[in-house]
């Protein structure tokens, strides 16, 4: 501890020599794609439920608040 000089902050060294790396970005983009895919999969299951509900409603159940069929979402774009 006492022998080591306080080195200039490593971040400062990066100022004019930034390492070009998008590894972190690749991770994040994959994560985003996975989250989007998961949401789509779960939404798909919920849409099926909604469709059934609308059918039930159409066949005569009363006093149920109408649940609108959600609009299909635009295709997931992870780029």
């Amino acid at each position, binding site marked *: 501890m*006492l022998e080591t000089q306080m080195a*200039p902050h490593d971040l400062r060294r990066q100022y004019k020599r930034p390492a070009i790396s998008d*590894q972190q970005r690749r991770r994040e983009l994959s994560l985003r794609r*996975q989250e989007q895919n998961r949401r789509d999969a779960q939404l798909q299951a919920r849409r099926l439920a909604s469709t059934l509900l609308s059918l039930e409603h159409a066949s005569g159940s009363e006093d149920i608040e109408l649940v609108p069929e959600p609009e299909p979402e635009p295709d997931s774009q992870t780029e």
Partner: protein
Amino acid sequence: IAAIEIPQKQWPALIGTLLANMTQRESHAGLKQATLETFGYVCEEISHRDLEQAEVNNVLTAVVQGMNFADNTVEVRLAATKALYNALDFAETNFQNEMERNFIMKVVCETCMSKEVEIRQAAFECLVSIASTYYEVLEPYMQTLFELTSNAVKGDQESVALQAIEFWSSICDEEIELQEFDPESGESGAPHSRFIEKALASLVPMLLETLLKQEEDQDQDDSIWNVSMAGGTCLGLVARTVGDSILPLVMPFVESNIMKPDWRCREAATYAFGSILEGPSLEKLSQLVQSGLDFLLKAMKDENNHVKDTTAWTLSRIFELLHNPAGGFSVVSAENLERVVQILLEGIQDAPNVAEKVCGAIYYLAQGYEDAGPASSVLTRYIPSIIDCLLKTANRADGGDLKLRSSAYETLNEVVRCSNIVETSSIIAQLLPAIMEKLSSTVELQIASLEDREKQGDLQASLCGVLQVIIQKLSSVDETKTVVLQTADQIMVLFLKVFACRSSTVHEEAMLAIGALAYATGTEFERYMQEFYRYLETGLQNFEEYQVCAITVGVVGDICRALDGKVLPYCDRIMDLLIKDLSSEELHRSVKPPIFSCFGDIALAIEEHFEKYVPYALQMMQGAAELCARMDTSDDELIDYANQLKRSIFEAYSGILQGFKDSKSEIMLPYAQHLLQFIETVFRDKQRDESVTRAAVAVIGDLADALGPNTKLLFREKSFYVEFLGECLESDDEQLKETATWTKGMINRIMVS
């Protein structure tokens, strides 16, 4: 030993014994030096609260007296100054007391003028640390500190001058943070003293002066750090701190130096210009950059390597900060783009240090066109030659420590990712076999040493990264997805060979690429599973490189969605490993939320077959939910983690409930009450994140949908949901509103049943 025993009050005599070493007249210098070093170690390890305030005072007095010039040898004063550096946090109470603070500051400032370089450097290191730890009490000392640092920057040895510049960089850090927290200042309670603004007129000329003190070869050696580099870095921070008002102080320097015959002047002018591109307003900067761009493009042909290096860096900063076609603004137009690209592609053939900075410029140039819609078309015609040049650059033999090669590949990724896929599909489709061939040849490489192995790993990691980006890009559109499907077998064979070479970075990159491939191929992925499974298992057991583990968990999710029920044969072992991961104290906590989400993915894929995992999975989920409720709500990082955890627990419930819905929903009945209880706790949490809200509302709907009338009573008891749904239905977030409407419909259905 003291660090352990003092907080437990098990060594009360220590401080007194050490103090005696300092005060007894017969103590020789060696003993004092050793004692001061010990104080330094101890103060760094313990808190001032671990001692009586009187003891803290005595320790600091001893340290500060050790710095006294008249009474002590050089060695003792140096040890004392270093001890003070380590004891600054420890001196918190003393810094709050004006008289004591004045005294400490006086001694430090005197020590900054000591005859010995090493002591001066240590004293300036103390000032740097004081700048960030005690920013709010510095006002009365700033005049003196400016004079001290200014003299050091202008005339002292480099090691001291560097610390003096670092002092101002630290002040900038503090002020930037204050501004980011609360741009108007005042509300947060922390005072913004505007030291940089007040010192600006003298500070900026002092920093500009440093820029002219370059060393030959400084750009060829990444380990060099000198006054001119530190000065430019500080200038960049000053620009971010004060914005527009730096421009009139810097621009005359730029203009008067940029044409001078001495390369140092031209380089310094360019470095100064590049450094002030972040902070000032777009309005002011765009005018300056529009007129300076042409000059910079010409300067890429300068006779001097450093000038070209700094010019290329400045261009990369310009494209990073002032080129945003998607946002409707850019200094690059359809008219000057051709010249820009031409200059960059010539520059990339220059010396490795220049070529690497040019890669950065291309990286940000391409990035600007991401999500730019039709505006991105202007780049399309240049993409083949850009890709070609980047591949040639990656192949260059003079890439030094391989940094250039990696930069070229990373830039290639950005070019592919940000390109307009409809227009570039055939170019990218051609790139795929070219990269596969390169990766294939790395597998055949002769490995004779550890170094060879490392080089092979780096190259494979880069190439797997490129493949991932290409696969993801091509899969994003139906027309080009077929290219991936047709090549999937060969890609997978290649990845399996790469896995067999073993290197964790490569595993991570290859794993990411395989996730993208599974998404693209869907059910077809089944035929790779038998071979691939063991690497999946290795990844899930990689506690040490937790990123590999986290990525692998994500890929399990991809595979579940791709294979649906066909993933079943692998689930026993996967679930076993996931449960072990969750139970592990060794595994980084950031991997745990994705595991819960993954439970949901598995359950949704294998539906009723998830039944046998329910007792284990739910036990984990309930345990984590309870942990969330107990978490410290004052720590920002923990709040963030708790939000991730909550969201992932809800995602797990959603997947499981939906998976069981058509067959065995009653399995989840015993868990319904606990789930609703947890949702209520989350609902009442004031720091609730939007994404948590969305997941919570969705899971209420899933509960009602899957368990139906069985939950009627439960919902009656837990009427908080009415308020919760009301809040969501009033939200501006369309997606949240849609989910809340759906959930409301599901609950209404059971209430009227």
